[in-house]
């Protein structure tokens, strides 16, 4: 029967159909096909007409085959969408419509198939679906709800998430007024009201962080955003989102509060606190540290290292400490350090450096804490000085007690012994001898008392008047005074002192000191040499060092070093050795805040070095 259908006009009409269309006979062979159909299926390189469905679409799903079979049975209006893969394996979606093909006698003679390429539409639908799912997921995660207001119908639609945020049941229907009423009275409600009307009036969109009270009565923070919708330039409603930011806001508030607490504590600690990065640059400083560095704003110190703030030597010491702490992960705790600022002022610190670890236990810097202990340190030094003075005074007192106990006692013991002997003496000649001895003992006692008086006077004078004394001049005067004595002993004195050196001293003490050392040098001369005394001086460490060197007997310092300047200590068998001169000299030197050092070698000579305060 199919063969009977004429081609000609039918064929012509069918070929021009815009929708790809094919007519199948009952054997499912193509009888007619539009050009557009052929364009799709004709790429197989053989004639479309006369081919079977299986030949045209070998992969055609069974479902479609069933549908075609159904068409032949008279089932109409069957549609479907199928995915097929094109020659380049690209995805193509076809929507097809199948209907039975009737002849004029209403007999089903085949099936008519129309296909439409709906790939673009399907893709868009899929994309839309994906987007919707993603949006929903995001909204849920970010707690973002949406809403839409239709002005014409005066209806407000909330998304499920928006309802959830308001803690209302899912069937709840809000109105614009009730929605606004959820906002907390006062700032939040005023703001939202104003924003909504502003949007309606002027088309301005909004986004505000506001407080909202849920149906359950909970106070929450939300970011409410919205903008007006227009269609053809005509305002038709509003659309917007609502995000629950309570947790974020609260944790932000907590962080802010903690930070504020921490910075208040750190800033107001009476300690210098700083944080340094791995390059020893300051990343945080507190008020005390700013005040110490003499700046008003932490920003003046941030990013700077010790090399910017201190001299290079100080900075290197500090950097070495930093590196020790950061490389070893060990703290330096309570170390006493002396900090010298660029202006030269010094501060004693009790400082600690503690390594800072990040979340993965990597050291990223250090925390420094320093306590200014300058006052404490100064007090300690004052105390130490006081102890020194006290122990020196105590030693003098003991010495004095010793003089009284030993020296005066020895004189009185002599008197008592001689008197006892005198009383029992019958020989007048011997008695006269004893009386001569008594007289001598009496003279000795007088001298001892005079010496004591001198010592007492020296120690009792609380105020001594120090004046600048030219050292070379003082030595010259002593030389003049002793000229006769030096000449008689053929002693030679060399005054090598530079003319410009001037010390702070008591002139009378200086005279006595110089005369004592010079006469001692001559008194304890070496029997095989003529005495030579060389006086020289130089500046040394802020002091003036006076050297008095002789070529005399020398003193065995190992044996007598501790007694050299003691009272009534003599080390040479010499009739004039009384052991008082050096004792007084030492006291005078100390009274002038000077110090004395002794170097001596037996048979070679002795050098005394006295360190005076420079008058300049």
């Amino acid at each position, binding site marked *: 029967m199919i063969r009977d259908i004429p081609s000609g006009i039918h064929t012509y009409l069918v070929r021009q159909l815009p929708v790809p269309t094919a007519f199948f006979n009952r054997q499912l062979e193509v009888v007619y096909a539009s050009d557009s159909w052929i364009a799709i299926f004709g790429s197989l390189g053989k004639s479309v007409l006369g081919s079977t469905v299986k030949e045209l679409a070998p992969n055609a799903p069974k479902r479609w085959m069933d549908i075609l079979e159904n068409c032949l049975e008279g089932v109409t209006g069957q549609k479907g969408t199928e995915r097929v893969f094109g020659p380049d394996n690209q995805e193509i979606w076809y929507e097809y419509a199948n209907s039975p093909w009737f002849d004029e006698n209403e007999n089903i003679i085949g099936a008519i198939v129309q296909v439409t390429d709906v790939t673009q539409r399907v893709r868009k639908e899929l994309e839309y679906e994906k987007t919707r799912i993603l949006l929903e997921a995001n909204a849920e995660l970010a707690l973002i709800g949406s809403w839409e207001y239709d002005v014409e119908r005066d209806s407000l639609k909330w998304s499920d998430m928006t309802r959830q945020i308001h803690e209302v049941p899912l069937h709840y229907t809000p109105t614009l007024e009730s929605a606004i009423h959820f906002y907390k009275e006062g700032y939040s409600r005023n703001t939202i009201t104003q924003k909504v009307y502003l949007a309606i009036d002027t088309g301005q969109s909004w986004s505000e962080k506001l407080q909202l009270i849920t149906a359950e009565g909970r106070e929450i923070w939300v970011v409410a955003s919205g903008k007006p919708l227009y269609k053809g330039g005509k305002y038709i409603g509003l659309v917007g989102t609502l995000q629950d930011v309570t947790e974020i806001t609260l944790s932000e508030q907590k962080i802010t509060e903690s930070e504020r607490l921490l910075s208040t504590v750190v800033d107001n600690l009476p300690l210098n606190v700083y944080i340094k990065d791995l390059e020893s640059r300051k990343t945080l400083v507190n008020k005390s540290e700013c005040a110490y560095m003499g700046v008003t704003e932490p920003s003046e110190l941030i990013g700077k290292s010790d090399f910017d703030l201190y001299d290079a030597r100080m900075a290197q010491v500090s950097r070495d400490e930093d590196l020790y702490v950061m490389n070893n992960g060990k703290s330096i705790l309570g170390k006493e350090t002396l900090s010298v600022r660029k202006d030269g002022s010094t501060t004693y610190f009790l400082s600690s450096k503690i390594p800072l670890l990040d979340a993965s236990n990597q050291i990223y810097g250090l925390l420094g804490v320093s306590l200014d202990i300058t006052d404490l340190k100064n007090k300690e030094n004052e105390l130490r000085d006081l102890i020194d003075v006290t122990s020196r005074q105590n030693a003098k007192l003991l010495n004095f007690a010793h003089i009284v106990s*030993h020296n005066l006692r020895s004189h009185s013991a*002599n008197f008592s*012994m001689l008197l006892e002997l005198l009383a029992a003496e019958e020989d007048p000649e011997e008695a006269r001898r004893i009386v001569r001895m008594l007289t001598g003992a009496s003279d000795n006692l007088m001298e001892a008392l005079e010496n004591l008086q001198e010592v007492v006077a020296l120690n009792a004078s609380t105020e001594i008047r120090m004046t600048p004394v030219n050292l070379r001049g003082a030595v010259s005067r002593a030389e003049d005074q002793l000229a006769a004595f030096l000449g008689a002993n053929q002693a030679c004195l060399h005054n090598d002192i530079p003319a410009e050196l001037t010390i702070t001293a008591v002139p009378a003490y200086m005279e006595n000191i110089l005369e004592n050392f010079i006469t001692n040098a001559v008194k304890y001369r070496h029997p095989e040499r003529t005495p030579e005394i060389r006086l020289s001086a130089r500046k040394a460490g802020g002091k003036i060092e006076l050297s008095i060197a002789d070529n005399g007997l020398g003193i065995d310092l190992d044996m007598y070093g501790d007694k050299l300047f003691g009272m009534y200590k003599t080390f040479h*068998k010499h009739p004039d050795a009384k052991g008082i001169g050096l004792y007084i000299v030492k006291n005078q030197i100390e009274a002038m805040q000077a110090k004395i050092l002794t170097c001596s070698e037996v048979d070679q000579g002795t050098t005394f070095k006295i360190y005076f305060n420079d008058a300049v």
Partner: protein
Amino acid sequence: MMQFDSICVIDDDPIVVFGIRKMLQGAFPDATFTSYENGKVALDHLSAAVASASPLPRHILLDINMPIMDGWQFLDAFIRLPITEPMDITIITSSIDPADLQQWETFRGLTHHRLEFRNKPIKKEDLIAIVRAA
């Protein structure tokens, strides 16, 4: 080592040396007196005597405060001398410093010599008793 009646006074004060000799002469008319003006001189002589096996004094009367070498420095060196026979040494000093008494105690524990301690002024009877007791 043979001893004979010899008394040695070590003191830098000639008055003391004179007095001691005068007080003892009556009680010990046969005694020989030697005196040294400081520890160093005494030590030099006594060391030489020990070295040459010469007789040593029967009794040493020792002052403490002397120039060059004081009584304690002398004792410190003297007790090291190789003298087997215990000797009598009496310290006679005007010092009432407790440190000196302490030193005496210390030296007593260090030596086999008999050490006595007396303060000046010393009475004639006391001095004679000490020297005789030995």
